């Protein structure tokens, strides 16, 4: 009988574990970093904790969408982590829901000036995020075993792409494609929309601008790549494109900076280049450029606030940013790192920078979500041949306007 009592009390303590810890110097960071980035930050935080043994910092990974939803739910219940780390496109939403704190009073201007302008994410007059990574952008990646020089214009893209699209076994099925990418997803389409002179919303970031000539031409362009020039597969999503490129069955892929490390570790000899200029317009195809960085929970304890700020500053120190850059090839945000050899001598980072320079900042307003959701169905109908580009552009605009209205009800 005594044994039972012991067992039960043991069980109860295990079940309730996790609540009886001293958490005064406990900082939690929720993030959505992929493994390589995660490992570097964990290492840096370990170093910090070694210097400050009385502080415990804990990182918790969540997938991007979940990070946002779980954080909102937790913060609504007056809970959640002290620091939330994620892409800048969630900032408008979190700020609007009042679940993150304005930061401008905590960082003086002199300190902020040390950062790339884009890294300071402002919304409605307040600073809500301080970013340590710049980019999260698409670029053209090519397999050097198949291609020596990447295309500079879309005409070259088509020409090179046609040469690289091959039926090697002669069975009527194409074994190697010129270009693959997750083209059915609007985020991966937007560079070309920009290349034809369009964009998803106006400069004030209020009204969608999808019913435009540029959109129609860009939509037709993608369809022609597939159906007339036949340099892309009939059906491709992210995973198919990724698999084809990793297997060496595609000369080029359009993919983001998060994926390049994976291609290298899969043993591919890759080069990165800006997505080509659109020949008809002479404009660069501009991917969205955003940042990833730190925000602070609205419900943070006042006594923990200084520590949270200190940790953000620590992780943003130039050495620490450079360490990340060296290992995961993302672009840093501290200006003083920009002439460091790690940044200036790496061919991938040089080209990543070229792409960033011709990219366009990603809107951080929550309306962007409504725009993605409105573009997707009509865009796919064009690709499936069930709608003309003109109709699709018009319907996208109408749907986006309605969704934004619903969202802001």
């Amino acid at each position, binding site marked *: 009988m005594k044994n039972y009592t012991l067992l039960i009390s043991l069980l109860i303590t295990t079940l309730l574990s996790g609540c009886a810890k001293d958490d005064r110097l406990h900082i939690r960071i929720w993030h959505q970093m992929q493994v390589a980035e995660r490992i570097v930050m964990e290492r840096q935080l370990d170093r910090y904790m070694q210097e400050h043994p009385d502080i415990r910092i804990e990182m918790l990974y969540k997938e991007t*969408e979940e990070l*946002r*939803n779980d954080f909102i739910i937790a913060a*609504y219940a007056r809970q959640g982590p002290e620091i939330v780390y994620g892409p800048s496109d969630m900032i408008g*939403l979190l700020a*609007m*829901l*009042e679940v993150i704190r304005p930061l401008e009073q905590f960082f003086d201007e002199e300190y902020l000036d040390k950062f790339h302008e884009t890294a300071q994410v402002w919304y409605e007059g307040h600073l809500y995020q301080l970013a340590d990574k710049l980019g999260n952008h698409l670029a053209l990646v090519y397999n050097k075993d198949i291609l020596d020089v990447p295309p500079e214009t879309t005409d070259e893209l088509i020409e090179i792409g046609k040469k690289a699209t091959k039926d090697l076994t002669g069975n009527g*099925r194409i074994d190697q494609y010129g270009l693959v990418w997750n083209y*059915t997803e609007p985020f991966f389409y937007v560079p070309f929309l920009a290349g034809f002179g369009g964009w998803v919303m106006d400069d004030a970031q209020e009204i969608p601008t999808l019913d435009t000539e540029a959109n129609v031409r860009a939509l037709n362009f993608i369809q022609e790549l597939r159906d007339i020039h036949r340099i892309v*597969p*009939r*059906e491709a*999503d992210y*995973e*198919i494109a990724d698999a084809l490129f990793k297997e060496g069955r595609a000369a080029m892929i359009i993919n983001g900076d998060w994926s390049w490390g994976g291609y290298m570790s899969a043993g591919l000899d890759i080069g990165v280049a800006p997505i080509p200029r659109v020949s008809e317009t002479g404009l660069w195809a501009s991917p969205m450029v955003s940042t990833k960085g730190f925000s602070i929970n609205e419900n943070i304890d006042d006594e923990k606030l200084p520590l949270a700020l200190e940790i953000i500053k620590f992780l943003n120190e130039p050495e620490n940013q450079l360490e990340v850059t060296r290992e995961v090839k993302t672009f840093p945000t501290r200006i003083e790192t920009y002439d460091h050899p790690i940044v200036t001598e790496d061919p991938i980072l040089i080209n990543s920078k070229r792409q960033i320079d011709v990219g366009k900042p990603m809107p951080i307003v*929550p309306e962007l*979500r*409504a725009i993605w*959701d409105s573009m*997707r*169905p*009509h865009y*796919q*109908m064009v*690709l*499936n041949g*069930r709608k003309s580009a003109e109709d699709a552009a018009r319907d996208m605009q109408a*749907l986006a306007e*309605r*969704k934004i209205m*619903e*969202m*802001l*009800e």
Partner: protein
Amino acid sequence: MIERNRKLFPYLLILPAALVMFGVVFYPFIYNLVLSFSNMSLRNFREWQIIGFDQYYKVFFEPSEPSFYTIFLKTMIWTVVNVTFHVVIGVMLAMLLNRQIKGKSIFRTLLILPWAIPQYIVALTWRGMFNYEYGSINLLITKYLGLPAVEWLRSPTEAFIAVIITNIWLGFPFMMVIALGGLQSISNEFYEAADIDGASAWQKFRNITVPLLRPVMIPAITLGIIWTFNNINVVWLVTSGGEPADQTHILVSYVYRAAFGLYRYGYAAALSMVIFFILLIFSLTFMQRTQATKSAY
């Protein structure tokens, strides 16, 4: 005294379970009911107010693509087709496994695997198998059956069929296990008596197996329908969130979209109340017709 005890006895048996279930569900349910009359949204997140039936009105009359009624119809088809196949395949396999044949335990183990493996990765594997150029399903169709390849994920109907196939695969082992358990309650004497009377296999199935399997299968089917109606995961994964062109959604996908896409919590709460009532009405009718609450003896 004894009489009173006897009256209390069933309540005592139910009490612990009832405490756990309603303790957890009661508060969230009331909370949602309140939200469904509120204007909680992106703009009114912390300070929301009760605004009456507006959100319900929007559920039925706000224009959307595809409309509420189209998706509702699709959800019905989705539910009925899935559950029918789950039950038919499950019962059939259970009856085969109940025969005296060799190697039963191997088959039993293999057939339960779709239930055992995490859904996320197999759903995505199925998505890969439906790929136009490289998927094994099209390969099977073209190479071995000599039929033209199907664009599974690019056309709405085919994509919907693809999701249903995936979900049938995921769901039949569960029904099989239940039917297997249910078959154990049927005494062989019934079949032996029927054999003496010269009954055919079909007659035995119809007059012995079905009625005696019913008490066990009816609850599984009722809940199977409720779960399938609200099963968002498989649809979302296989069609990558409703592709092509938002044509493969079911009603709950819209709840998710509204709540976590556009942050219209009030609207999402109203929509989920509507779903709740649809299922409630269904269950009431279904149980009345199958007399599920009555006993078999």
